[in-house]
């Protein structure tokens, strides 16, 4: 299972890098969200996979009996997903505003803040 997920992470990162190398800002953002999902999966796998053993504490005990799934990476991933979602929503709106006010999504043409010729 770990190997399978590792390969999946590799594919996600490869596609993300491919998309992010494009000059189109929207493609870049799609690459970014793939990359952030790859990061989330990495945390998940790094916490070791224990299928079929939910981390539940039985009645009358203080700790779960036997080997159970690690709950911490799931909490970390959940936090990361929420934060990543917020940031991505912002980035998407920013890309839209950039298209509206700059008239392009091509990052090579975005030179307003850094013009090629210094205005002297």
């Amino acid at each position, binding site marked *: 299972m770990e190997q399978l997920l590792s390969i999946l992470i590799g594919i996600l990162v490869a596609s993300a890098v491919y998309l*992010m190398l494009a000059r189109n*800002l929207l493609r*870049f953002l799609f690459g*970014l969200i793939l*990359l*952030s999902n*790859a*990061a*989330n999966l*990495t*945390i*998940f*796998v*790094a*916490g*070791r996979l224990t299928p079929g053993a939910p981390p539940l504490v039985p009645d009358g005990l203080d700790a779960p009996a036997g080997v159970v799934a690690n709950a*911490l*990476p799931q909490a*970390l991933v959940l*936090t*990361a997903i929420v*934060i990543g979602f*917020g*940031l991505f929503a*912002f*980035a998407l709106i*920013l*890309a839209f*505003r*950039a298209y509206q*006010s*700059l008239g392009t999504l091509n*990052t090579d043409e*975005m*030179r*307003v*803040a*850094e013009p090629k010729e*210094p*205005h*002297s």
Partner: protein
Amino acid sequence: MSWYLTLPLAIPFLTAIIAYLLRANPVGAWVSIIGSGLGLLASIALMVVVLDAGVVAGQMGNWPAPFGITLVADLLSAVMVLITAITGFAVAIYALGDITERQAKLGYHALFQLLLAGVTGAFLTGDLFNLYVWFEVMLIASFGLLILNGGKEQIDGGVKYVALNLISTILFLTGIGLLYGMTGTLNFADLALKVEGVENQGLLTVVAMMFMVAFGVKAAVFPLFFWLPAAYHTPSFSVSAVFAGLLTKVGVYALIRTFTLVFDHDIGFTHTVLLWVACLTMVIGVLGAAAQSDFRKILSFHIISQIGYMVLGLALMTPLALVGAVFYLVHHIIVKANLFLIAGIAKRLTGGTEVYQIGGLYKSAPLLAILFLIPAFSLAGFPPLSGFWAKYIIVKATLDIEMWFVAFIALAVGLMTIYSMTKIWAEAFWKNHPDGIQPELKNLDHKWAQLIPVAGLAALTVFIGLNPEPFVQFAERTTAQLLDPTAYITTVLGEVR
């Protein structure tokens, strides 16, 4: 509950909420000032406690470390929190004369306080994942501040700033995941103990490099700095001052924290990389500045160049070099924020930031000229200002271990810094204004609100410069804590197991 650890965080958050509710009211700016003032008092209280105790830690929600979220302040954290509060207070006052009604209505003051909260949180946390969360608080607030004006320039700079910072964030997150997989913990103190037991030390170095790149983007070191000069000259002057003072320094702080406490297993490799990065950052930054002609762009490239000195202090990893790095951090935040605030006043007086198109400030506004000279000379490292001691300690540290070439670079970059500062001085201050404008301070709206913070920060620079002894002693105590983290670890975890 250790109130002195939570107050510096709680105050800016509460202020942000109140300031947001009062955003359409002129009182909002004063809420921000009072909140920053209270935050300053709280961080002074924290400093007093830490000076006495050495290291203080608090477990949030009373979960024992390393399971819960730990807030911990050693001397480095405490001084960074204090200097953040000082800068925040100065910029909050300055905002009275800088932030328009429209920007205030869009929530400038709330975002500003959130940024301060994020920065303070990053300095106080004792947990790697929590550090990620504070980075995000800081990032999202800075995104908002950066594009608040909504003009073409801001959007354009914002796209690059957002894109590169998000990549660094994801890299940071991946590093956290891998480190957790190897050690099973994310608490700094616990990590410091557990990394030694990791079987595959080579893999640990790989993860260390991921953190170096992630924090390197935040700190704007070569070759990862390109977002900084693309964005820092576009927003309001208050915003760029607080960005210039604080944001990159959070990256440097994170580098210092992780590469002294956690990743000290292979100094020969990691710190040699840092050494090269530091030298290149210094040189490229100062050369970039020489090519610019916009007041804020010159200053932006100087941030990069100065970051090089701090990273150099960390890279050498000798006690004296770390003293220099800590001293440099504190000095640089004050000086750099101040220079950006002065750029704002100069813009309002002369109508521009392009130094060839403005001028005449020395003749008609001599007070501003003096206030510029203090931080500018301090940045270049003239005695008896704070920058002289900062540079002196770093250069002395390189000479002590006979790294002549590095010492040469550090000194040469100092000379180049003087060149850029004299360019600003000659063009913006000394020569007459090409349009014949006589910029006078008395025509400035909210004159004192803008001049007092600038004068206060300049006075602090002079004070540190004339009276460096206690500050150097403080930096030496800080360095001793960094190099021997036993106190840090025992305070967080209780007794060492």
